[in-house]
């Protein structure tokens, strides 16, 4: 069990009368690339928000690296080594590209406000590390030459990449990606797929949500299918694709 990084135990989230996530159990093992798919409104994004602590769960338990995090605030979960991107890209628009990634270095840096205000030695030392890390991540996603531009001036595809670089700068063990391929061109999507493979090769576990089936089946080791908040299938891409319940959910046919 020690290689299970993320685990949910019958986790449920209700919005008023609507059950967005209904008693979902699944596990993500270390080094895996796992995908959450499902038709619109299946509760995929809600599930990611529960995992990253942006929404409290109504009931059930979430374990990250064996620790229960249902009572934890988002920043504490980030401190456990979980980073994420957002469906509608949420960059810090008033900052430069590089500064965005530097914010990502927050979980592993320590200098407080006094150190920054008075420029103590620790500030310079850490600032150098942060800057190096930011440059490394920007280089990795291919944005180094745009480092000093304001983040909002980037085209959409590059904003996505920037968001991934920012998440990587936090040195995560698990990377949650909420629809990373949506709004990207075919070429950009294939670039993204190769980037995700490289991230996975670095030993970072990936959990992603997406609609682009080809993209998902291409890069993921395992797929979880949600429909109306419930988990209806789990397995390798091939298994899932031939599962009648999955087909039914996607084509809107009543399952037997």
């Amino acid at each position, binding site marked *: 069990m020690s290689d299970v990084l993320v685990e949910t135990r019958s986790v449920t989230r209700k919005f008023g009368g609507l059950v967005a996530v209904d008693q979902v159990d699944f596990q993500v093992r270390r080094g895996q690339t796992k995908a959450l798919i499902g038709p619109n409104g299946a509760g995929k994004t809600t599930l990611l928000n529960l995992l*990253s*602590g*942006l929404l409290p769960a109504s009931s059930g338990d979430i374990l990250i690296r064996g620790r229960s995090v249902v009572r934890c*605030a*988002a*920043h504490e979960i*980030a*401190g456990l080594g979980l*980073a*994420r991107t*957002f469906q509608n890209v*949420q*960059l*810090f*628009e*008033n*900052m*430069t590209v590089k*500064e965005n990634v*530097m*914010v*990502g*270095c*927050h*979980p592993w*840096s320590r*200098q*407080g*406000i006094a*150190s*920054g*205000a*008075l*420029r103590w030695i620790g*500030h310079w030392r*850490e*600032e150098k590390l*942060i800057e190096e890390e930011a440059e490394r991540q920007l280089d990795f996603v291919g944005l180094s030459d745009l480092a*000093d*531009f*304001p983040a*909002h*001036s980037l085209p959409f595809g590059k904003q996505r990449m920037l968001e991934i670089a*920012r*998440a990587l700068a*936090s040195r995560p063990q698990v990377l949650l990606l909420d629809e990373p391929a949506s709004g990207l061109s075919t070429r950009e999507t294939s670039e993204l797929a190769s980037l995700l493979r490289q991230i996975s090769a670095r030993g970072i576990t990936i959990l992603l949500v997406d609609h682009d089936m080809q993209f998902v089946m291409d890069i993921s080791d395992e797929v979880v299918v949600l429909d109306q908040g419930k988990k209806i299938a789990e397995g390798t891409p091939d298994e899932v694709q031939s599962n009648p319940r999955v087909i039914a959910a996607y084509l809107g046919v009543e399952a037997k």
Partner: protein
Amino acid sequence: MKDSERRGTHTEKAIPVRKKNLQLLNILPFAVFLACYAFAPRVVNDAQLTTIIYIGIYALLAVGLNLLMGYAGQVSLGHAAFFGVGAYTSGILTAKPIANEVIPGVSAGVGVISAVAALLLLTKPSGWKLAVGISLLVALGWLHNLPNLIPVLCAACAVAVMGIFGLMAKLQWMRTCLSGVVLTLVANLSKWFLKGTLERGSASPWTGLLVGVFLTAVISYLIGSQVLRLKGHYLAMATLAFGIIVEIVFRQWTSVTGGSSDGIFNIPSIQFFSYIPGFLRRLYEAAAGGSVDLRTQYYYLVWAFVFIAIVLAVNIVRSRVGRAFRAVHSSEQAAASLGVDTARYKVQVFVLSACMASVAGTLHAHNAGIGYIHPSEFGFIVSVELVVMVVLGGMASVWGSLFGAAAIQTLKDRLLDLEKTNPEFWGLKLQGLDPIVFGAVLIVVMIVLPQGLVRGFSDGVALLWRSARRSGRQQGVN
């Protein structure tokens, strides 16, 4: 200001925000500032000096508020309240005689506070450690107030007691000794403060400054930790309400604050030049050709604080915590998902900016030749003025706040001059124009220069320069 609006003002081609290897450009404003700082009193007359002192006080406020509003994106419409807390604390402590009976209590209080501070600084706090520390320091506070207790003995006592305490708590002996030494120093420092107070009959302005900042920090922490959960308009309303409540306290608590009829007067000023090294003073006096009057000294004091505030603000903005502040401004969700404790940082910047306001308040109270404070100087209108200064100077622009404060203060002076002439406009008596004019300024700035004076101006210059270069190049081609 919404980001989308801000985006609208951008030129189509994005330009890099800050190029590398332009360290000189970062230092240049400070150099210009210091040059102006040194020579300004030589070129201005008395009335202008008064205005400049006020500009300094408001610049201090605006820089602090800009950290909160411009960088961390949290609106405060009650900032004048902290300004007032600083001013009143300082004014009350220095202008009113302090009864001798209060001194031991105050001394014990200072002891306890310094003990808690030292404990928090030097050890990892836990409940019982804190309890032991506090009771220990109550005793210490009482001890060091006993007459004829020599500091060395006091230090030895403190180190010994802290040593035993440290052994019990299994602390490192280095840390323990260090905290003992720190405590002794703080205890003796407070003793020195109190001795001066006893001789003078009232506290020194510096004590007023420190107590004011401490009080403001406590109040702003308590208020901020509750209020900052709110967002946008709700936060604005809550801070507005807080500001109004504090102003009412200033007006109604007559026995302490003098109420709205009296205010507090005869607040002593600070002779700044008696605190700087003698040779510097003599050098300056030689250059100025004679002794320097109190107002000029006060000018130097106020603007020294402004300089420190700007340096601190600029440093904070370009640091890890400053980036976290700005991240909170843009997207709290994204910031939190990257490990930024949004609640903590919001309270932190709130307290910081309140403390800066409190320092400005103390400076306002001790203003040379005036030494008078009144509740109306800390009311809602002042809070709004501060917001206008920040917006006019430019949100998220430390230097902009300086210009915002200067512009608004100058405008205020002009309006006052105008009102003295009792103007009439189609039978309408033009009195109390400030709010109307400031409202108009705010609207115009929001529409025409949403980036504020400084950024708007520099953007305009950059645009002109680039278009000039482009047309120059075209001519070259032709």
